[in-house]
């Protein structure tokens, strides 16, 4: 856990899916280091292998070749030090918001009183105070995603993996949740890996943006985002921000005029 070892360390990572007739090469020689407390975004064309990379990091899938260390240890199976936020809220509709947030605590056998206290804290952190006893269907899509974030944090993971958590939301809710995520990140400082299709979201939130090629995913470039923190919405119209967005956009083949 010393400062030199990165939190996530991927070396020549390769992933081949062997389902069906012809195998699919999803990741090809991916090298990536993510430091502790860092916020890193992954962008790249659809289907290039971003989700695959998150699955490998979380231990839900194992690489076909290469090395993957998390927190200095080789990943050999599912890891509890990871919190996963999915593209869909994936809430249990039969549980209240509070019970949904508590689910990982129950499965991991955390002490009840302690878990309840943490859940309450997190529900407040994501701005859902007063909704503890509501059911998911009574919440908007954005509120449900926030429940997903609170749930991912309940067992105090050291890494937060976010797979397009805001892609189903309208642009205003999305901007708002970007700010929330920044706030949560600055309070908790979880090492975060975010997949997004929004380049400006990636630039706005991250310390670095990793740009992937089309499948099989290779790292095209890792773009440093030197914008100061704390980040504020006004930055999104600064020259520097726009240039960064433009640069990343060009890398994945988008032309901004």
């Amino acid at each position, binding site marked *: 856990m010393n400062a030199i070892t990165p939190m996530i360390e991927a070396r020549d990572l390769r992933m081949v899916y062997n389902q069906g007739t012809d195998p699919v090469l999803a990741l090809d020689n991916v090298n990536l280091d993510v430091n502790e407390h860092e916020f890193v975004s992954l962008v790249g064309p659809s289907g290039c292998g971003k989700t695959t990379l998150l699955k490998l990091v979380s231990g839900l899938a194992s690489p076909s070749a290469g090395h993957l260390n998390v927190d200095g240890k080789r990943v050999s199976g*599912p890891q*509890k030090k990871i919190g*996963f936020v999915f593209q*869909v809220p994936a809430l*249990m509709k*039969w549980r209240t918001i509070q019970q949904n947030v508590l689910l*990982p605590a129950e*499965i991991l056998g955390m002490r009840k009183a302690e878990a309840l206290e943490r859940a309450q804290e997190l529900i407040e952190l994501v701005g859902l105070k007063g909704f503890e006893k509501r059911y998911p*269907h*009574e919440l908007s899509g954005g509120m449900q995603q926030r429940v997903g974030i609170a749930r991912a944090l309940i067992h105090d993971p050291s890494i937060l993996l976010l797979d397009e958590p805001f892609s189903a939301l309208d642009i205003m809710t999305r901007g708002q949740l970007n700010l929330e995520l920044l706030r949560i990140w600055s309070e908790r400082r979880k090492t975060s890996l975010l997949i997004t299709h929004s380049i400006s979201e990636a630039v706005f939130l991250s310390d670095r943006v990793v740009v992937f090629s089309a499948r099989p995913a290779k790292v095209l470039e890792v773009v440093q985002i030197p914008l100061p923190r704390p980040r504020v919405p006004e930055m999104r119209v600064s020259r520097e921000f726009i240039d960064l967005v433009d640069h990343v956009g060009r890398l994945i083949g988008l032309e901004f005029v």
Partner: protein
Amino acid sequence: MERTSARMQAGGAKVAAPPRSNNVFRSPAFHRSVKVSVTLVVVCLLWEAGCRWFEVPSYLLPAPSRVFASLFGSSVDFVHHGSVTLYETLLGFVAAVALGALAAAIIVVFPKLADIIMPLLLIAQIVPKVAIAPILLIWLGYGLAPKIFVAFLVAFFPIVINTASGLAAVERELLDLARSLEATRWQIFWKFRVPSALPLLFDGMKISVTLAVIGAVIAEFVGGNEGLGVLIIIANQELDTALAFASLFLMSAGGLVLYALIEASERVLIPWNSAASGQILGDHR
């Protein structure tokens, strides 16, 4: 549509049910039952008038008044026959729910066994129950057993299919979450699969309970000396159509009550199932 907006306005109100007025006479449920009752009364009146006007012979189509007279005025012990049929139906139904849910659980938890069980279930479902009822009579005698068994047989399949789809229908992301937390099989089953299966189990029960009534009556047709099905056979032999209609009425009423009970328990037991679109008798949410 009004219900939705009513709920949206009720921002801070209670969780499960949409808020409703305290005044029973203004509630939508009351309005609906008034509509249903009025429709029934009008149908009966038209039926009665038609029978009298056209002087329809009673053995062809008895007027409601005659059915009514048969129901309350004859020496037939409807309470006894009705409770026999109800008993067979309920036992068959309960067995179907218990064993059906169990079979579904086995199919989902042990997919390898599914390959053996599913074809057997399918065969059991495809065999016409009316055709095997006489055989069951030979095997199980003339008592209640074959009736309960036929009720069970017809009620079983919808439970298995619905529960199995429910158990299997857990979101992929939720299962990923379970795996990433290293949830045990036991936890995955009880915390993830079972609750997700409940709405479909209830849907299956609604289908099954009406089928169970049919199953019990069919078995009574084939042989026996008590039950509403037997009354219909006797009524047919004696051309006592009013008696047949009276029995028919009781069967339908019984089936309806059972159905309503299941819907009611669904509302109480799984209030979170906001998408309970299958609610026919209860509130349309």
